[in-house]
């Protein structure tokens, strides 16, 4: 049917896949850091929603995407702050609190959106692009990869930076120790609480930024429940990355592109039920796990509270 080789078309597909991948990339990157420090954020999708909503409000009212993104970070981090206070400081159950945060975020953003924007349904307009000169001229790939909003490049760079920080800095060392054996970190004179709190805030801020990107670039407006369960997919990506941050890029792009592939197949006339296409990435990962099963490693103290001196 369609001209598969049309440059614009391929560009749109790859770009679409990337746009879908970016929220997952940020959220999973943040979650990876928190998990390395021993905090499991089941409420990751909640941080994304909070970030998405506040980013929408700010961008709409100020017209500035950058302020919107910043607001997304702040809102996501605020959600994570609740998590940090209750689970890191007070040692409450991470799963319970995570789900509670998710529910409150879903309900509250939907209510607020209903109260303020349901009638007017404002949209944010076309997002700006921060093109990389030169690279942009490459056919297909140039347009799709190098003419994206700056947040895309920042996200990809950030994955490598986070990888480096975790491996090569004292902060990274502390984070890894906090998730693996918090008593060792404590004995070394570093506060487990502070380390885990920062890591959790990092998860919140990054997930919030992912949410902000979703509304500003991905959707152009906010609708309730806009994250559509991508919080859980991000958790899966973070876990599959096994502590190596750059792998979140692979995971996020795999999931993002699978959405584009579904569209592409339809447009070239392959009439396959979307159910199959959307199951595909999960099936692929399961098959890979079955065939090459290896100990998938999660930090030993993940989701466990740390109480000094407890027997």
């Amino acid at each position, binding site marked *: 049917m369609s001209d598969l080789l049309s440059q614009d078309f391929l560009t749109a597909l790859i770009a679409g896949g990337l746009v879908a991948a970016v929220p997952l990339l940020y959220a999973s990157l943040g979650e990876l850091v928190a998990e390395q420090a021993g905090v499991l954020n089941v409420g990751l999708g909640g941080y994304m929603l909070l970030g998405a909503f506040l980013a929408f409000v700010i961008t709409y009212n100020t017209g500035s995407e950058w302020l919107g993104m910043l607001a997304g970070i702040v809102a996501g981090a605020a959600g994570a702050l609740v998590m940090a206070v209750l689970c890191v400081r007070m040692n409450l159950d991470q799963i319970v609190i995570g789900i509670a945060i998710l529910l409150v975020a879903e309900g509250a953003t939907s209510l607020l959106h209903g109260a303020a924007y349901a009638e007017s349904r404002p949209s944010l307009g076309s997002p700006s692009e921060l093109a990389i000169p030169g690279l942009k001229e490459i056919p297909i790939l140039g347009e799709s990869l190098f003419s994206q909003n700056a947040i895309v490049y920042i996200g990809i760079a950030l994955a490598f930076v986070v990888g480096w920080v975790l491996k090569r800095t004292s902060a990274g*060392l*502390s984070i890894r120790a906090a998730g693996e054996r918090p008593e060792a970190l404590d*004995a*070394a*004179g570093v506060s487990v609480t502070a380390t885990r709190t920062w890591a959790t805030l990092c998860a919140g801020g990054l997930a919030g930024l992912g949410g902000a990107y979703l509304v500003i670039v991905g959707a152009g407006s906010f609708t309730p429940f806009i994250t559509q369960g991508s919080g859980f997919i991000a958790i899966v990506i973070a876990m599959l990355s096994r502590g190596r941050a750059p792998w979140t890029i692979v995971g996020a792009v795999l999931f993002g592109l699978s959405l584009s592939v579904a569209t592409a197949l339809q447009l070239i006339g392959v009439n396959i039920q979307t159910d199959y296409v959307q199951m595909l990435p999960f099936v692929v990962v399961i098959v890979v796990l079955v065939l090459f099963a290896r100990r998938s490693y999660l930090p030993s103290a993940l989701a466990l509270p740390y109480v000094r*001196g407890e027997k």
Partner: protein
Amino acid sequence: MTSDPTSAGPLLELHGITKAFPGVLANDRVDLELRAGEVHALLGENGAGKSTLISILSGMYRPDAGEIRFQGREVEIDSPRAAIELGIGTVYQHLTLVPTLSVLENLMLGSHGGTGRLDLASANDRFAELARLLGVDFASGARAGALALGQQQQVEIMKALWRQGSRVLILDEPTSMLTPQGYEELRRELEHLKDGGLAVVLITHKLHEAIELGDRVTVLRAGRKVGSLAPDDLRGRSESELSARIVEMMFGEQAAELADAVEVEAAPAARESPRRELGAVALRVRDLALDADDGVVGLSGVGLEVRAGEIVGIAGVDGNGQRELAELIAGQRRPRRGEVLLFDEDVTRLGVREREARGLRYVTDDRLGEGTVGDLDVAMNAVLKRIGRAPFWRGGTERREEIDRFAEGLVDRFDVRTPSVQTRIATLSGGNVQKLLLAREFAGEPRAVVFNKPTHGLDVRTAEFVREQIREAAGAGLAALVISTEIEELVDLCDRIAVMSRGEVTGEVENSPGVEERIGALMVARAGAGVPAGSAS
């Protein structure tokens, strides 16, 4: 830091330190003083409160009462960080390495206080410096979790010394995993550090170490300080004399019974053990092989046999395949090759429960992580290997009275100190957990038992009790295979001693006077490489 140690006042003083845990007064108005340039040995039976006291010093616990003075000034040590800032370095009893990090990363953990980029170059320099000092033989990039326990302990010591300018070094049973050579290194290093003006606290259960290394000795009992020996008291007395005094302080009037134990500690030498009747070959392993894996030592061609009534020891530096061998015998691991025979029956393909039902038992060295489930009570742990069996379970449902009655029997017979059999086992002290494990494995009709470091971390009295149980059981026809890193203990206990090195049995010797050197030689040898293997068999 070259002040004359004797003239200066104490560097650190503890006054009236009190610390209670639910139901236990772990420290009761304890005083302690540390002087620069001295090693202060801290002794006491299991559960006496030694670790609690030093945990207060290192900021892990806050005392309920009492004060701490540093150079005469009252200080509050409310976190490990505060302790580190005062220059107090600690090697904890339970290792605190992060297994997934490399040795170097473990050493650098928190060391700079900052959050910035790691300075690998200078860290490697410091590592090399300390490695020379302590004579370690692993690389700085090795994963901490993959090292043998003894090596991990060396890393811990390096960690405590890592910060230059430490004033106080606390060592909680640092030698429990060290080889004799390692101990020698440590001893030399302590001398060196003392000269540098460091104050050292040394906790140990080995009296000879306390006497040899300590300039001052303090003994705790049931949370109280029951006595101490100043440098003057220590000087010019014989080791056995000192041991007797310390033992008396530790255990009070019953100390007399422990003469033998003290002797083992003070003068490691083969003692005249009564000859036991040897029966048929009870346990035989042939040509066992196992592939090495992360944290697992490979085995090749391991063969051994133990007769009924015989105690066979396995000597060797920790981490040379002893644990893997024990697990293969117990059925917790599958060998790549080879077989395990119990009274000529091939049990290689049987599971743990079937082997256990046939009288093959294994006392693990990992009492808390493997031998017991900390969150279950004493009674459930007593029947841990009999779950589902009559009379404790009928029709799949639990019969609590039967279980309690059985557990009470074990507790009585092995003198396990516990408030009741319904007490969560994690709150028991190490020695008492060990007694329960032994009681559990001796119950029923054991025919062959593998003991993995059965006295590790136990106080002299409990250790002697354990050895006595093994002897008695062997006297009654049990085949015992005792794994230990302490040659004296094996010499004291065994009829025959095999030596393991790098996953192989490098030789076997009959227990006879002067056997220690031969064992020492075999420990560094490779099988079939010059040293006559199996001189006895």
